[in-house]
């Protein structure tokens, strides 16, 4: 067969593509279980840390996660932990960031008067810029952040890093150089707080 002939080219392309895609499918299938376990573990860890429940090993995550109740209110799935003095609630959230969907967990006390913590489960923000929403310094700002009039505020633009952050006033620092991501987080979290207030506020 002529190497530059149409038939050879088509057959060759088909075989090569088939072979490599087949190998990829195999690799994907082979690791699917591990990837899924990783994701499930990451999700459980995110819920626990958002609720400020400390854990050390993966085993502990498993046992602690079992102590969390899953409650459904108004068709929304909430996680409830009654271990502390007061019950706290957590909810999964997702909203659009700059490049893609940001998903995570936000945890609040039962009056929605302060945030217990947030965790980011997945995002596609720019690594090193918006991607820093998953960094501890950013997330730690939300530990015990007071909710003022049902809202919080994340600074962005020239405001970010200007020292305006204040836990009592419900103001957290945005990320310098990632205004759009900071803005998105502000919108997403305020939306979630509004919804949580509606769900939890009505029941007591």
């Amino acid at each position, binding site marked *: 067969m002529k*190497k*530059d002939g149409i038939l*050879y*080219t088509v057959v*060759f*392309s088909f075989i*090569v*593509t088939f072979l*490599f895609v087949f*190998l*990829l499918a195999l*690799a*994907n299938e082979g*690791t699917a279980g*591990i*990837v899924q376990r*990783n*994701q499930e573990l*990451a999700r459980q860890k995110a819920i626990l840390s958002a609720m400020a429940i400390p854990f050390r090993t993966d085993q502990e995550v498993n046992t602690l996660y079992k102590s969390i109740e899953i409650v459904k209110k108004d068709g929304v799935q909430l996680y409830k932990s009654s271990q502390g003095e007061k019950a706290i609630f957590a909810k999964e959230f997702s909203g659009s960031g700059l*490049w893609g969907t940001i998903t995570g967990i936000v945890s609040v006390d039962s009056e929605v008067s302060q945030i217990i913590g947030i965790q980011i489960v*997945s*995002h*596609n*923000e*720019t*690594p*090193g*810029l918006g*991607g820093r929403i*998953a960094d501890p310094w950013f997330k730690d700002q939300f530990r015990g952040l007071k909710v003022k009039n049902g809202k919080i505020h994340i600074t962005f633009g020239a405001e970010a*890093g200007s020292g305006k952050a204040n836990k009592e006033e419900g103001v957290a620092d945005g990320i*310098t*150089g990632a205004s759009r991501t900071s803005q998105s987080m502000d919108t997403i979290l305020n939306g979630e707080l509004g919804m949580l207030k509606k769900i939890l506020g009505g029941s007591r």
Partner: protein
Amino acid sequence: MTAKDLKKISRENLWFNNPIFIQILGICSTLAVTNLLTNTLIMTLGVTFTAAFSNLTIAFMKEWIPRKVRMIVQVLIISFYVIIVDILLRAFLPEISKSLGPYVGLIITNCILMGRAEAFAQSNPPLPAFWDGLTSGFGYMWVLMVIAFVRELLGFGTLFGIPIAPSWFPQWTIMVMAPSAFFLVAILLWIAKNRMTGGKA
């Protein structure tokens, strides 16, 4: 192919024909991913792995690849290795995979890979091609690590995430953002060119 030839290839790729300094390839990722050393290291390792193995595979197959579709086949092979890297990271290093986000997939578009496949692997035996891909990757890696070192140190006051700078040190926001990589690449280019030509450009 002798040891001398291999040494020549590595000298070329690491310095005299460095992908960043001379070929000016792979600049997009240089701008985007070099503000943290850890991310830079993992990404450049991914590029090195892909460059080495895609070169090896292409050099093995080159006799059978019809000329008309050779570039498509090269891209196919490169994507294959990049997706393998992505799958491995997701399964075994989920944290890193998360922090690199879309950049792993974008290795496919790194011009160094196509450049080496077309310029070297297409016309050389498998082993030198593998070596060429590997050293090209390292040539790219060391330049990016230098840039990342400066950017992370001045931008965050840390190295590999470990705080280094004293607390009074003002963090340079510009170093965190992409434009600073332009300045740093330009300065490095200038220094490197100057050294190579001995000041008479």
